[in-house]
């Protein structure tokens, strides 16, 4: 547990001092959403209808941006080898890396989402649902992404490859995330959709660290 906190604290400190990764993800999120505003011609009703889907898709792409760097820096400077030599199980280390990654990229997206929602004319009734759904959905994206990041460590064109591997696996989260936000718009209860998202998160939490650790072991050996 101590090592878990130490890794998270260390990664957060690095991210804070560098600052670029976090800002890139949020900046991309805001810019892409703005582009949709221009692309759809600024018609408020058309924007409102598409807003939930647009926000989810841009959030999904934004959270994928920094995936490539999740292990790459540690791999290049050798600190990954050091981490793997500690007594702590590699699965736990994966969990810590994923948690730090989510705090630096997923959490800012959730904070920025209401702003984007206002810009895209999403009805304010749906904001709570949108943020709740993102809160359950983005950690799942990070956990699935950790598998992709570990698999492509050291690959040629790793960044492009990661999207090909990870995006298909993101689809269930996207479907249920948009559904949760849209049911909130229609005024119906959205518990079932949120529960499905929560279920995905728990399944990913239980399984993804093992898959990512296995992928990392064969990448580094």
């Amino acid at each position: 547990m101590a090592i878990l906190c130490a890794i998270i604290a260390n990664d957060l400190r690095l991210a804070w001092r560098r600052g670029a990764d976090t800002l890139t993800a949020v900046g991309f999120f805001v810019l892409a959403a703005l582009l949709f505003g221009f692309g759809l011609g600024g018609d408020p009703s058309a924007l409102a209808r598409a807003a939930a889907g647009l926000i989810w898709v841009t959030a999904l792409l934004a959270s994928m941006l920094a995936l490539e760097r999740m292990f790459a820096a540690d791999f290049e400077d050798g600190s990954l080898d050091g981490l793997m030599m500690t007594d702590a199980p590699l699965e736990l280390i994966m969990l810590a890396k994923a948690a730090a990654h989510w705090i630096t990229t997923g959490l800012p997206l959730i904070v920025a989402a209401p702003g984007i929602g206002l810009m895209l004319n999403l009805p304010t009734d749906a904001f709570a649902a949108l943020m709740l759904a993102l809160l359950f959905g983005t950690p799942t994206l990070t956990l699935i992404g950790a598998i992709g990041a570990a698999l492509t460590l050291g690959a040629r064109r790793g960044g492009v490859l990661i999207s090909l591997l990870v995006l298909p696996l993101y689809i269930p989260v996207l479907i249920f995330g948009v559904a949760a936000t849209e049911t909130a718009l229609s005024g119906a209860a959205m518990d079932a959709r949120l529960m499905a998202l929560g279920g995905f998160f728990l399944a990913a939490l239980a399984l993804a660290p093992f898959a990512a650790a296995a992928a990392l072991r064969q990448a580094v050996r």
Partner: protein
Amino acid sequence: MLNFLANPARFMRIFGPLLPWCWAVAVLAGGAGLVLALFASPADYQQGDSVRIMYIHVPSAWMALGAYTVIAAFSAIALVWKHPLAHVVAEAAAPLGAGFTAICLVTGMLWGKTSWGTWWVWDARLTSVLVLLFLYLGLIALRGAFDDESRGQRAAALLALVGFVNIPIIKFSVEWWATLHQPASVLRAGGPAIHPSMLWPLLLMAVAFMAYFAALLILSVRTEIARRKAEALIVAGRRQS
């Protein structure tokens, strides 16, 4: 058993002779199935002759799932017992599975246009099969993305196991979500709900597709073994000279 088959020469001695038999079964069952499907089986009372797309669409869908299961099984064998030959089999099956998935999607779109009136809907079954196609493409791309060949093989084997979660989702998507695509009518509890005049050509086509898959699989495994042998000989030859 696994160790016994892990020797490439022995593997090919056992499975190589099966190759002509696979071709024969594929041609005979496929020919008979096509004749029955195109001429002997009845047209649907609503869909007319377009129902005959089923005899290609359904077997290729089964093979799309079957090929992925083969890949996942051989990937597990390769990762657990570290048999290089299992990697070769999984690698050979990936493009074949991608082909069957593409056939399944294209015939499904044609059939959808004639009977549903649309090329594509975002139905659970259609979407999950599309995801399967991207999983196949991801497997092929990941395997080729490393300078170290064995690293790519191991990464792809792991991805194959991770992506296996999609297979039960595809199989049961029509029951869990009950959207436009019809539920299973052959492999279901309570026996097939399809008339024998259509079931027989369907099963014959399925056998033909399976034999065709097996034949191509054996062929490309044999090619890969031969390629490795040739490379090893070239390296050995350089060392001597």
